């Protein structure tokens, strides 16, 4: 009686619900897609540029949606700007040691970068006639500077949410320092998966798609290893997952979102043409369930 595996068991849940689950998912997609697009711009061939543009086309709407979801989740949504400007003094509000404070600024800055790259992609595709926006696309130094900075801030947006959870006093969230790492790796896996799905839908055949397949196959394995490390690092708090959430984590994330997609990625003959798209769809589903389990399970303790 009265034995608790951690001092975190006396805190109260913040009632972060579906809006936050969707934010974690779309924020991960935004950051991850931008990061992958930046890698393609920096290290890929010119014929892979449509793939990079696809990443920017995904990133900007996702980051916009993220801002909307976060604002709606506030109990006083019209005060969303209090995250950035101190309401009493109208001075900038910034706390380096508060992940939510830094994350709010990162989301704003990443929004600007993703908008710039989004407009650049539109210009390169000829959907808007603007020589000025065309200059932010390769070749050129300007593109390099924008995608390096945007890619770094984007990956920060994808991963800071895990750090934010760690910087609380809730069970599970604050009982491991690895959730940020898990979210970063998962952001890469779901982003590569979404780009694969959309590229296949457009019947693209550029060589970068093969690299994207392989990247996702590698990252899913890495994500599995990080998830196992998370479970081990929880120590006695792991028993908080010995329930329906743990079953969902095992079946929905590990089996459906990692093991089956890995098998499909590496054994191409199983489903023929639909092998890769099925694997990518499952990775997306698994990535969503991962965020769902982490957000909700810690609040039910």
């Amino acid at each position, binding site marked *: 009686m009265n*034995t608790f595996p951690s001092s975190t068991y*006396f*805190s109260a849940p913040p009632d972060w619900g579906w809006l936050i689950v969707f934010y974690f998912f779309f924020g991960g997609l935004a950051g991850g897609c931008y990061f992958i697009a930046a890698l393609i711009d920096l290290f890929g061939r010119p014929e892979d540029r449509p793939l990079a543009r696809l990443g920017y086309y995904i990133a900007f709407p996702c980051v916009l949606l993220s801002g909307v979801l976060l604002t709606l989740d506030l109990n006083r949504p019209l005060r969303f700007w*209090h995250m950035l400007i101190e309401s009493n003094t109208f001075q900038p509000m910034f706390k380096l040691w508060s992940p939510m404070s830094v994350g709010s600024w990162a989301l704003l800055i990443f929004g600007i970068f993703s908008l710039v790259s989004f407009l650049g992609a539109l210009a390169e595709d000829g959907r808007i006639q603007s020589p000025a926006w065309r200059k932010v696309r390769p070749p050129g130094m300007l593109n390099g500077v924008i995608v390096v900075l945007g890619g770094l801030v984007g990956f920060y947006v994808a991963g800071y949410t895990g750090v934010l959870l760690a910087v609380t006093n809730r069970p599970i969230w*604050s009982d491991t320092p690895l959730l*940020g*790492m898990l979210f970063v*790796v998962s952001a890469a896996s779901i982003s590569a998966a979404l780009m694969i799905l959309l590229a296949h839908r457009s019947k693209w055949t550029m060589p970068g798609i*093969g690299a*994207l397949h392989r990247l996702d196959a590698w990252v899913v394995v890495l994500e599995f290893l990080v998830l196992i490390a998370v479970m081990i690092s929880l120590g006695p708090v792991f028993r908080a997952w010995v329930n329906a959430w743990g079953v969902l984590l095992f079946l929905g994330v590990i089996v459906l979102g990692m093991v089956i997609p890995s098998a499909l990625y590496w054994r191409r003959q199983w489903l023929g043409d639909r092998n890769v798209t099925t694997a990518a769809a499952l990775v997306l589903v698994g990535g969503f369930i991962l965020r769902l389990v982490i957000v909700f399970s810690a609040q039910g303790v």
Partner: protein
Amino acid sequence: MAEPMGFYTDTTVCIGCKACEVACKEWNQLPSTNGGVNTLSGDSYDNTRRLDGIHWRHVKFIEQFTEDRKDGHWLLMSDVCKHCVQAPCLEVCPTGAIVRTEFDSVVIQSDACNGCRDCISACPFGVIEVNPASGTAQKCTLCYDRLQGGMEPACSQACPTQSIQFGTIRELHGRAQKRVAQLHEAGEKRAYLYGADEKTLGGLNSFYLLVDKPEVYGLPPDPKMPTRNLASASWFSALGAVVVGLMGIINFRNRGAGAQDHEERP
């Protein structure tokens, strides 16, 4: 700055009258639960159940009974915000709504809070919640308005047994230590102070005299700052980003031959 002020709560003399709860609710004009519809817990004399946005004081009724209920007693404790010297809620608040006052208490400015609820998950004691009337996070203010007017907080003034005592922290520490010594001399060797030392979040400006383990009273035995994980979590995230970045570079750089190999895998 005025001298740090706070509460010393001697749980051994609490009689569970809930005068503190009523005084707190009245002074701070906190709304009733369910619009005043009477809801009983059904298994305890404790119908308040927990601290939240509209209950800034909560008298806990901890039953310690034998299975046949022939013998037993209650531990009673009036719980409240601890006004930690190193306050987790204040540390994480992204809007600057949570501030430290000249009395060393921790206050949420309702007009600045936007209801992000980060402070709720940061508080190791489960003290803060949203007040549905304001849509903002709320908790005990140590009656900041009364202190500014030279009065003591409503709860301690209403307490009929001096279980809740208000004063300067220095004076309260002295008073509490004498009480512990008195109880030890009288044979109650279990008596000790919770949160009076700096090891607990720099010291709690609302500390307790207890006669059982902290967790029996619903208090964490070892409350910690949320930022304890900040550096390690950030470094691990950065490591994850570097590994994924390297994987991306390797794949996109070598994708010509590599991707072909992969596509041709049987």
